[in-house]
């Protein structure tokens, strides 16, 4: 009994503290050593992050990357996903068993189907003000007129106040000035196939276009592991598990370490190299 009350009190205190100091500096790691090291420990929790799809066809990859980040940040709490109807028409509706395959149990998800861009922003802000949530994903289509610096600042502020991370998936849109803490560009990368030539775990090419802390213009190839709910670097992983070498898929890695040097980090080159084999 005393135990429960103490927990509850801690919760109350943390809530009060959250309210008084809007600048929370807690970060959550991605699990990928390279990304976490470059970002100084991970992404800002109480902030807005923009995740652009590299071309419309990369929307599933961008959405999955956002789900993965939300899973890292939410620690088992419920997640709200606000999605504009048109994205579903264009790219397909969310398929709940597929969410489970990425590690997000569908029971944890509440989906808001918004008719247009302004509704997406409105619902997203409303959700981001709800502190018990683990994360909020919002997915407008293209470049909504109302999505300007002021609108993103409102979203970022809501996230900062409630300590709920906000991920904005942008498909079919171009970067505009925004108050996001980080901006990513995502597309799928070739997976590491199994012996039977079956497609493997989902891999992403993640380019960090902008970051508040200043590191930007870097790219990584990461693989999402559902069982560990963690990203891992493809290059470092490959060095570790040498047991199943994949002919022609290795990128020559002169540094030998897990960190990609910025000059040769171009994921395009990496996948080109693979395809050549």
């Amino acid at each position, binding site marked *: 009994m005393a135990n429960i009350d103490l927990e509850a009190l801690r919760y109350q205190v943390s809530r009060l503290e959250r309210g008084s100091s809007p600048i929370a500096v807690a970060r959550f790691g991605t699990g990928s050593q390279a990304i976490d090291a470059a970002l100084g420990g991970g992404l800002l929790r109480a902030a807005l992050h923009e995740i652009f799809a590299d071309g419309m066809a990369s929307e*599933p990859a961008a959405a999955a990357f956002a789900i993965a980040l939300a899973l890292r940040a939410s620690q088992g709490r419920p997640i709200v996903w606000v999605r504009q109807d048109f994205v579903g028409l264009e790219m397909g509706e969310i398929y709940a*068993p597929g969410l489970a395959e990425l590690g997000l149990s569908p029971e944890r998800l509440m989906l808001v189907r918004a008719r247009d861009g302004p509704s997406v922003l409105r619902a997203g802000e409303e959700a981001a003000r709800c502190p018990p949530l683990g994360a909020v994903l919002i997915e407008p289509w293209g470049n909504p007129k109302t999505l300007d610096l002021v609108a993103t600042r409102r979203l970022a502020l809501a996230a900062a106040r409630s300590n709920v991370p906000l991920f904005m998936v942008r498909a079919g849109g171009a970067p505009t000035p925004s108050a996001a803490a980080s901006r990513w560009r995502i597309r799928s990368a070739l997976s590491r196939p199994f012996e039977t030539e079956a497609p493997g775990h*989902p891999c992403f090419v993640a380019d960090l276009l902008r970051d508040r802390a200043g590191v930007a213009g870097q790219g990584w190839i990461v693989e999402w592991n559902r069982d560990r709910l963690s990203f891992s670097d493809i290059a470092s992983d490959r060095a570790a598990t040498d047991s199943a070498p994949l002919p022609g898929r290795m990128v020559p890695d002169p540094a030998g370490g897990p960190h990609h040097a910025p000059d040769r980090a171009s994921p395009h080159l990496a996948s080109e190299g693979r395809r050549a084999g």
Partner: protein
Amino acid sequence: MRQIAQAPTWQAKDGAQDKPPLVIVEKQKGAMRLVTLSRVARRAGLMPGISLADARARIPDLWVEEIDHAADAALLDAIAEDCDRVTPIVMVDAPDGLLLDITGSEHLFSDEAKLRTGLSQRLRRAGMHVRTVIASAPDAARALARHGNVAIVPPGEEAAFVRSLPIAALNLPEKDRLAISRAGLKTMGALASRPTQLFSARFGEEMTLRLARLQGIAPSPLTPRRAAPMLWVERRFVEPIGRVEHVEAALSELAHEACTRLTELREGGRAFEATFHRADGAVRRILIETGRPIRDPAVVLRLFREKLDSLSDPIDPGFGFDMMRLALLQTEPLASIQSGLDGRALEADAIADLADRLATRFGPERVVRFIPENTHDPARAARAVPATFNPPATFNPMTSTVWPTPEEGEPPLRPLHMLNPPQPVSVGMAEIPDGPPRRFTWRRRQHDIVHAEGPERIAPEWWRAPGETGRDYYRIEDSEGRRFWLFRAGAYGGASPPAWYLHGVFA
């Protein structure tokens, strides 16, 4: 139980002085007959039931209109809506009557007589001829309004008051009525003083039941136009209010009052309806629903504000509202609020509140969560239900379906997005009859397949699609790393060549 019955008695209204008498006609058994007359026509000696030719023979100069049942019904409905300001329990007694349950409403008008005159005057001002009777039995009130000449029947004395009514008040089929009057029985009193077995043997149980209902002995079934609320609170304004802040203040008072009542009852509301009565008779209703019982006035008000904010046609106060009502259409037991130290319960409440707010603003069908379905058909494996939906009490987590747990080490076997319906793709030649294609074209783009797994044969349940052989699904990856879920319908060597479809997209 006190009921009030009104018969607005459709009466044709005379036009200006120089207009001829107005009669309303309807085609009955091949002849045009008069059904409703104006006062002038009645005074000229016409009566309902005679044929139009007869009437013309007596008074050549007649203004004739054909009856319009739809318009009559619409008018009666509009009057019923207006009577809603007296009580929320209003029944339409087609074709020309209304029945109001005024139990517990009379004190708002100080007594029954004042309520009756107030209501009659209001309708007379609108140009209606009404007869209004208050009685404790609905059928007695109904019959007295049509055939009697009393205004208020003291409780329990219905039997005495209906004695003088004619047999027609029973509303029997014409031949039964004729048979009874031929037997020399002209009034209810004559029927009531005889043993009922005589009548039930000759005219059936229905007739004696009607007689009992008329005397207030047997209960009458009532079907209100709208579901009767569990409880309601209302405000009447001497001076109609129109300013937004006044309306909000009144709504806030109502919400507090309703929530106090709910607390006393240990109940919480699931559906709240606010009714705004405009001084000119127009009525606007706003409904909010919640996913769990609530009785916090602040939450109720916030939901109403969301709803009012999102209306495509805002509420127009016109000349102001002279009455507002907050009715609870659905309530559920709700224990007293917990001490508030349990953080987890608070969090669940906060998320339920968020779902309610979003559902109120965007519509419940737009705020969903997923529940699993026990089926192999991938297109039906998940169902989206409103997030505010509560599983019924019979819900048993042991027998109901749960989400399948993915096997450790396996890559995702089901796509993140599903295309519904599946989109046809064109393929080159497949390598082997049971293999995946080498490349396919989707949305004018060619994808070269580098990795593939399959086939995974999924057949629909036989009772859904008899004769369908099933589909062969393949997980494939193209040269750019995009992952797709393709399937082939039909087999090689069949009547028609197999067709390929894209059913989903992986991350």
